[in-house]
């Protein structure tokens, strides 16, 4: 065995790579459980690609067949129901894991120098993930698939000059239809593999600068780091066990919890559902989109820009945050802003879930007002973080010299 490895290593340094990048890869010893969510995201990506591959073996992209084919998978394919429920719930869990992963990065300042490129790859991954999830949701060709696709693709028409033509080009016709379904399937198959490639870049960028840690300081002392294996391999495995228990509880006992009942009705271009609602993981952004309704004919374009900007603004987050301290653990004001931001995202999600014309308190408070306020609050986070750090308003608490 060692002879074979010697032979291989002389030609391709596999052992050396595994040693330096996996088994002996130095990792801060103080990473808490929030650091589990990176490897967990990769784990879910693998579940999604594996279950998706087998689903693709039985699926047909065809406006007249897709709905029936999904039911064929559910009923006639051996363990087809398991594949589909894993894949459908996997999407929701993927977003949960990735949202926690992003928020962890925001809380502990993992986007700060020298990890900007690592952070940018992450945002690119998030964008691609949203595109993939959106197109995947269209494939069962239920009512929500169809009308969700219609609403979201229609947003492109807001782009000046080329918008209308662009939408027709995306649809492959004058409405969402069979050509749309076919190309979405092709792209839904391709994009996860591209995502996998960018994950490798994300990991490369990580390993070039090494992990941040809850204290947020650079490691100087060798005693502060431990080899990835066995410490983080076992910790990640334990995390995956906990994750799988929760995931499987949904897959086996509440598989339709995250799914809209309307999507068990075949797509019908002649009948608009009373309330078109995207998947939960898009709801905050959907609420931001709808909250810009006061600019007349520019509202649609402005809404689209606000929605895209809500994520794109993360690109400049490393330059907005000017604090000398990375971790919010030692930044009382930033910490408060952070939790307000998280709460704001939940409220936006709730606003996005409800019909645009809904109101609470007997109609006294229209949700659109809450939506606008929360959209303003969402962007305020980034502005205020810059203000309190650029003008030295925040006084940080003592930061330990070592972990």
């Amino acid at each position: 065995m060692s002879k074979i490895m010697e032979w291989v290593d002389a030609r391709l340094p596999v052992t050396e790579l595994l040693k330096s990048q996996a088994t002996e890869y130095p990792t801060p010893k103080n990473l808490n459980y929030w650091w589990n969510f990176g490897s967990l995201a990769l784990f879910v990506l693998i579940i999604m690609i594996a279950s998706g591959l087998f689903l693709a073996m039985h699926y047909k992209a065809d406006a007249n067949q897709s709905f029936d084919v999904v039911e064929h998978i559910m009923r006639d394919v051996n363990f087809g129901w398991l594949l589909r429920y894993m894949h459908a719930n996997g999407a929701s869990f993927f977003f949960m894991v990735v949202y926690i992963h992003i928020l962890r990065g925001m809380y502990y300042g993992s986007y700060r120098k020298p990890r900007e490129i690592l952070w940018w790859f992450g945002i690119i991954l998030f964008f691609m993930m949203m595109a993939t999830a959106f197109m995947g949701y269209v494939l069962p060709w239920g009512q929500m698939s169809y009308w969700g696709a219609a609403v979201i693709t229609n947003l492109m028409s807001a782009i000046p000059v080329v918008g209308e033509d662009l939408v027709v080009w995306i649809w492959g016709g004058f409405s969402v239809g069979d050509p749309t379904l076919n190309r979405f399937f092709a792209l839904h198959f391709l994009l996860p593999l591209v995502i996998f490639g960018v994950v490798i870049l994300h990991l490369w960028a990580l390993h070039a600068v090494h992990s941040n840690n809850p204290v947020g300081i650079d490691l100087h002392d060798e005693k502060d780091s431990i080899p990835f294996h066995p410490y983080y391999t076992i910790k990640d495995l334990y995390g995956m066990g906990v994750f799988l228990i929760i995931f499987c509880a949904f897959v086996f006992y509440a598989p339709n919890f995250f799914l809209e009942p309307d999507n068990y009705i075949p797509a019908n271009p002649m009948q608009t559902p009373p309330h078109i609602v995207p998947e939960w993981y898009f709801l905050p952004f959907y609420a931001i989109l709808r909250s810009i309704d006061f600019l007349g004919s520019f509202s649609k374009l402005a809404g689209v820009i606000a929605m895209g900007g809500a994520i794109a603004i993360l690109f400049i987050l490393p330059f907005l945050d000017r604090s000398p301290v990375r971790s919010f653990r030692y930044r009382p004001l930033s910490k408060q802003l952070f939790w307000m931001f998280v709460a704001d995202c939940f409220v936006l999600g709730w606003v996005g879930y409800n019909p645009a014309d809904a109101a609470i308190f007997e109609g006294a408070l229209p949700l659109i007002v809450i939506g606008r306020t929360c959209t303003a609050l969402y962007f305020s986070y980034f502005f205020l973080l810059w203000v309190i750090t650029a003008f030295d308003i925040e006084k940080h608490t003592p930061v330990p010299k070592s972990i």
Partner: protein
Amino acid sequence: MNYQQVVQLHRFTKQASLRSATVLFFAAMLLVVVLPRGAVASGGVALPKQNWSFAGMFGQFDNAALKRGAQVAIQACMTCHSLKYIKFDQLRQFGYTEIEVKALAESQGRTKKDALLSGMDANAAKDAFGVVPPDLSLITKARKGYEDYTFAILTGYASANDLALATRVMADDKISDEEAKEVASALGLDMHHLDKMAEVLKRMAAGENFNRYFPGHFFAMPQPLSDGAVAYTDGTENSKIQLARDVVTFLAWAGEPTMMERKSLGVKVLLYLFVLTIMMYAVKRRIWARVH
């Protein structure tokens, strides 16, 4: 600040952020769970919760109920509706014999290899009802409220007494406060919107299909089940409620014939994962003892 103080501060900030995270989580959950109901309460009437034998982790289909339910579906629902994802032969999965299945199929002019398709032509149905009756294979999964919704619809039609009430109240074209209270409690209508109530009562009196659980209250389907509509052979009372319970059980099965396979596999998977995860936690503690 000495080292000890720094450590204490760490602990404190860690606890504080955990606490705020927990509070926030529950506040958000409260918001997500409680508020939307207030916001969309105008949409429909709250559905009565039913106890279904197949619900929950260890739920099981009652085979006798499935057999009766299939009979109701075939003899009542299939007059207009199809269940295109189910074949007659599949009914053997819960106790019908091959001979019984053959007889059931033949009663519909089909063979046992055929799907449960209605004899009614889609165009004829559209002419008669204004809409094509939807396929019922997925009906319990395709509506908010799931099985409870289907059961509520089947049992939510106006009774003879309700109709008499509607006629009586609208005889003078006015709704007094007492009448409003009576109507509100009998039909589950909002007594604060008398004009809407009047419209509903008028349409009821005109013979339209009122259903207290249907959003908007009126739809194309006339009351499909009534006491004694289907003759059971196993001695079970064939009241409307019982027929509805049985047929909804059958429709839940038809919506996902693999449900029991899913639930029984789930128990094994979760047990395995519990044991595995506990072991991994123990190993994790052991390995990390060297660091702490």
